[in-house]
Structures are given as C-alpha cells and as structure tokens.
C-alpha cells in the first residue's frame, strides 16, 4: 500500500508533466508556428470572425431604428429582451451572456418555459417594429451565447430593413449576401452560414 502510494506519486508527477505541460506546450508551439491567425482567435481589426457582436445599438444618422447593419442572433439579454428596463449591456455582447459576466453559454430556458415564450414574443415584436418578419434564428438565442453567424434566410429577411437604412438597392444586398454565404464544410457538414462581422465589413465597404 505504502509502496503503491509512493509509486502513485511518482506516476502523478510523470503524467502531469507529459500529458499536461509537454503535450500542451508542444501543441501551442506547433499551432502558433503553422496556424498563428487561427490559434490567436481569428482576429480582424474589428473583432473576431468567430465571436458574435451586438449590432443592435448601431446608430445610423437619420435612421432611428439603427438598422444600417445586419443583425446577428439576439444572444443574451440585449435590447430585444422581454424586459427592456433591465438591459444594461449591448445586445449579443459575448461578455454578458447567461447572466454571468464574461461567460459563454445559453439561456437554458426549457421548451415550455413561460420566460422563453415571453422573450420570444418581445423579440418578434421588436423585429416587426423594424419591419422584418423574423426567422426562428432571429428570435432564438444560440448555444454559446456568441453565435457569430446567421443563415442566408436570416440575412435575406433583413434586406428591406438594411436597404431602407442604407439606401443600397435590395438586389445589391442580396448579391452581397450570396457572396458572403459560406457553404457547409466539405459541402455537407453543418449548414450554410454567413459570418455577420464579415458581412457588415463588406457592407461598410459598399457604403
């Protein structure tokens, strides 16, 4: 027993070094060497293409509805929330999700949750006020609370709103959406999606 304990302590140190530090430092080294951009978080000047942002508070001069950009999913308790009085942070800001500062996560509201029903109803009303008939993605939150993407359908329903605010012809916007749509990996893994940050960066160039 005592011998086993001593041997176990040796093993604990060995495994900690090999499986923890050697593995992870070597991994980080290789990653930084070959995939620096990805390993650092796929950063652009405006943020990360992998992390969703709040596009709801963008003020476009002369357009009170603030819709001169495409919106992402209504993650977290933003201005779309059921109770606008409680919103203090901005939309799908990844730093505020699931009520815990700085943590990723979902709302975790159950499928027959009254809160989910009320949130959703408020979101539908919000979109209707913007003149958009929302798709399910636009009124439901994601698993991570910082979904960077929307589907082409989600973008297309926002076209009239963005066109009205920016004055860009809907056809051009639709072409932009088509250009920004990324196919599923290898053509079949997952769904086609649009990265909202890239889309809005491209939109900004159009303007």
């Amino acid at each position, binding site marked *: *027993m005592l011998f*086993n*304990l001593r*041997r*176990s302590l040796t*093993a*604990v140190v*060995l*495994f*900690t070094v090999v*499986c*923890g*530090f050697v*593995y*992870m430092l070597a991994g*980080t080294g290789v*990653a*930084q060497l070959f*995939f620096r951009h*990805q*390993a650092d*978080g796929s*950063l652009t000047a*405006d*943020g990360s293409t992998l992390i969703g942002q709040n596009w709801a508070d*963008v003020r476009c001069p002369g357009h009170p509805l603030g819709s001169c950009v495409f919106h992402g999913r209504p993650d977290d308790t933003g201005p779309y929330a059921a109770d606008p009085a409680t919103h203090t942070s901005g939309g799908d800001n990844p730093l505020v999700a699931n009520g*815990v500062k700085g*943590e*990723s*996560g*979902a709302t*975790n*509201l*159950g*499928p*027959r*949750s*009254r809160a*989910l*029903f009320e949130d*959703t109803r408020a*979101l539908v009303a919000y979109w209707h006020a913007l003149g958009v008939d929302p798709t*399910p*993605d636009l*009124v*439901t939150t*994601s*698993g*991570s609370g*910082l979904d*960077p*993407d929307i589907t082409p*359908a989600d973008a297309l329903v926002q076209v009239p709103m963005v066109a009205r605010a920016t004055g860009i012809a809907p056809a051009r916007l639709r072409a932009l959406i088509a250009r920004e749509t990324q196919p599923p*990996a*290898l053509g079949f*893994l*997952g*769904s086609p999606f649009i990265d909202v*940050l890239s889309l*809005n960066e491209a939109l900004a160039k159009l303007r």
Partner: protein
Amino acid sequence: MTFAATLAALVVVLALTWRWLGSYMAAVFEGRVQFLAWIERPLYRALQTGPQREQSWRRYAESLVVFSAAFLGLGYLLLRVQGHLPLNPQHLGAVPPALGFNTIVSFVTNTNWQNYGGETTMSYFSQIGVLTVQQFVSAAVGIAVAIALVRGFSRGNSATIGNFWVDILRAVLYILLPISFVAGIVLVGQGAVQTLAGPVHIHDPLNGVTQTIPRGPAGFMGSIMQVGTNGGGFFNADLAHPFENPTGLTNFLYMWLTLSIPVSITHTFGKMVKSVRHGVALLVVMAVIFGGWVAFTTYAEHQPNPAVAAAGVQQKQTGNTEGKEVRFGDTTSALFNVTQTQTSDGAVDSASDSYNPMGGFGLLTGMMLGEVTPGGDGSGLYTLLIYAIIAVFIGGLMVGRTPEYLGKKIQAREVKLAGLGTLAMPLVVLVLTAVAVSLHAGRSAALNAGPHGFTEILYALTSQGNNNGSAMAGIAANSAFYNVLGAVDMLLGRFAILIPALALAGSLAAKGVAPASSGTFPTDSPMFVGLTIGVVLIVGGLTFFPATALGPIVEQLSHGRLF
C-alpha cells in the same frame, strides 16, 4: 440531405476506424507494438514495474484506486493554490473548496461535469496541469479496466489480469497522445484557439462595441477531451463555443474522435478473445440502440419548440433553434448531443436544456441506459460486458445449460459482480435525485419551473452518476450542496462499477475455458444481440420509467401549457 450525408460519412469513417484502431489497440495491449519502447523503459524504471510483472485483480484495483486518490489529492491542492501559480494571465484566485472538490472528482472519474465557467474560473495552469492531464489519465484508466476484463475472457486458469501501470502508460503513449496531437493540429487549423497569451481587447468601429475576448489553449484540450470521452471544455459553453468548435468540419471531427475508441474497442475485444464475431455482436448492440436514439432525438429536435411556437414563430424548416448554433443546424446538433450523451463524453454543441421535451428525453435516457452505446473509453465496453453477462445468464438458463460466455461459465460469483455493477448506477442516481428534490438546497437550483425543473435535477444527477458530464445547464449546481452531492454521485458511479468489473476480470481469468457446442447459447448471434439490447433497455427502462414519466414525458404531454 446534408444530415443524411453527415450520418453516412460518420458511419464510413467509424467503420474504418473500427478496423484499424481496433486491431492496433489489441496489438498495443498484447505488447506487439514497441516503437515507443525507448520512452516506456525509463518510465517503467521510474515506476519500478514492467510488462512482466503481472498483477492479480486485487493488486490491479489497489494500484488504480491509490493512483486515482493521489491524483485527487494533488489536483485539489493545485486548484486551491492556482492564484499563486504561473500561467494565470487573468489573475484568477483559488477555486473555492466545494467547487474544487467537485471539479477534481469530476475529472478523475472521466465525468467532466463542470460547475464552473472555464474562462472565468480556471487559470491556464489549472486547465493544463490538472484538467487536461486528467483527460488523458481518466480515459487511460477506463481503457485499462476494459482491457483487464477482456483478458479475463481471453485467458484461462490465470491468476493475473495484466499490469495496471503498463496498461495506462501504453494507453496514453500509443493511443491517446498521438491521436489527440494530430487532431489538435486539425482543430486549430480550422479556427480553434491555442494560445497562452490571455484575453484580447478589441474595439469595433463598425458598432462601437468594445469586446474582451477570453482565449486559451482550447484546441488541444478539445482534442483530448473528445478522444478521452471527457467532454469538459475550456469554455463554459463547451463545444457550442466557436473558439472550440469553429466549423461544421470540427463538429464532425469531434463526433468522430469521441466515438472512435469506444466503438473500436469492440474490435479490440474481438481480436483479443480470438473471435471478431463476438466483438461485432457487441458493436451491433451499441449501434442498434445508438441508431434508435439518434433517429428519435433528431426527429424530436426537428419539431418546433413549443414556447417559441406559442409566440407565433413558424419553425417548419428550421426545427428547434433555441440554444443551437447556426453553423451546425438543428439535426446535426441533435446528432452531436446524442453522440456525446451516449459516449459518456458529455460535451454539447447546443443547449440540452432548451431541447424539446422528447429531445431532452432522448439525451437523458441515453445516459440512463448506463453509458454502453458505445459508452466512454473502456467504461462503455466493461459496462456493456456486465450487461452481456446478465443477458447470457438469462439466455443460458433458457437453453438449459449453465450459462457460458466465451467459454467462461457464468456462475454465482459472476452474477453477483455483474449484479453489483448493474445495480450501482440506478441506485445511486435515484437515491441522490430523491435527496436533491427533497431538500430546499436541491429544489431551488432548478432554473425552469414545472416538470422541466425536475428534469434538470434528474439530468444533473444522471449525468454525474453515469460519468457523462453533460448538463441541462440551467441548473445552478455550483452550491456546496450540489458540489458535494455530485462528487459522491460521480465517485460511486465510477468506482462501484469499475471495481466489480475488475473483480469479474479476476474471477473469469481464473476459470478454465469450456468449449462451445450447438447446445451452448451462441453469444455471437443475432439472438444474443437482441437479448443484450433487451437487458440494457429493460434495466434502464424499468428503473427510470417513473422518473422520466414525471419529467420529460409529462412535459411532452402538457400540450398548450407553459410553466
């Protein structure tokens, strides 16, 4: 269509993996693969052991328990003092005592239940030096126990079942490390973060938002957490987080990695007992149940979310999108969560809590079947073998012979140990759930009201009792009460099955091998497969039917009601 293609691709890659990895693992544990002997030898010397020094099942179990206990102690210590250790760019303080205890138990038992948010609680040092290490070690321990049990079948009149130290070292060096490393590179290439540089602050001129984006060595942690069927990710959102699971391809890769060892080990079993057909029989048991659950759960998730529908949103094309990521979609997300709940991995790429009642039922019951379809690394096989022994016993009686499995007579001692192994999980889960719902500290943690709240609690204790680690994450389980209750749940769920499995290995190895004849219940036949499926479903079904009736089933039947 893309879902069907995904499923087909998964079947194909797994078939290839089964063939290659399965026989490779057999070679590793039979000592036929030697290319890393130059690393092995000094390690054996340091541990004063070696392949020639075989252990009885008692010695094997003792080594395992002492080793795990040592890791529990050291891990707890490191979590408590992380504030004074390096690799802590966010200057995070000590992990609180109850949480630290729950966390280290969780990782040592291969559960990876997380009562903490990774990015806000754990320093890089803790993530690397404690959590990642356990993701290797706990998986290796599971594999070692499974291999020891397989040796019980493949050996005759033997007093020993292998050497624990050799088995875990080989599992780590030859299997877990290489696969995780290669997979880690692919994951980072796809966009997973891998840096020790700490969070980044960015101001976006397009919308005026300033973000603080947490980062860390998530890619290489992600690969071992899936290869080791651990499931505890770097970030709170786990594999829904785009920094861990950036694309449809990584999502697929994660599923593949999770399933590869538990599935392939049936081939290893077949190889080692010299009857690949027997391995195939177990594989079919796993595949049939798994397939059924995938069909059921993905169908359920393709239905509209009732609360969202009540708000007037038509979800015909999209299915239930609440808590799901756009890049994965509803059905693939459901497939992903089913693979993770049935492998004891427990990672999620979508919020289980927001699944439709029957979708959640699919995830919950997938765990309630005892994590055997295909279950965790090693633990899936040894638990399934325990169920198979029960099936063989009943089937053997029905053909009028003392039951035999692979020539080993299943007698009182085997039935007793298999009985213990089957009994442990339902007993622990039910009793602890009853305790939780009876006390205010337990009841008040549920986020959702009505039957869904009950489901959250039941899910939490089922997940920990099965060493799964997935959660209906609305539950506020980071309380002293749940931290301790969960730790008990995880320890019993792991060791109350693992130790009988080792005892079984010892008892079987000591027996002689009886030859099969046409009077023997054929244990590689469709009938055996059917009977074993029956035992798995019946044991799970009969023990958990009342509980699920009061959770997801009632919720499903509550048409038009909100809670």
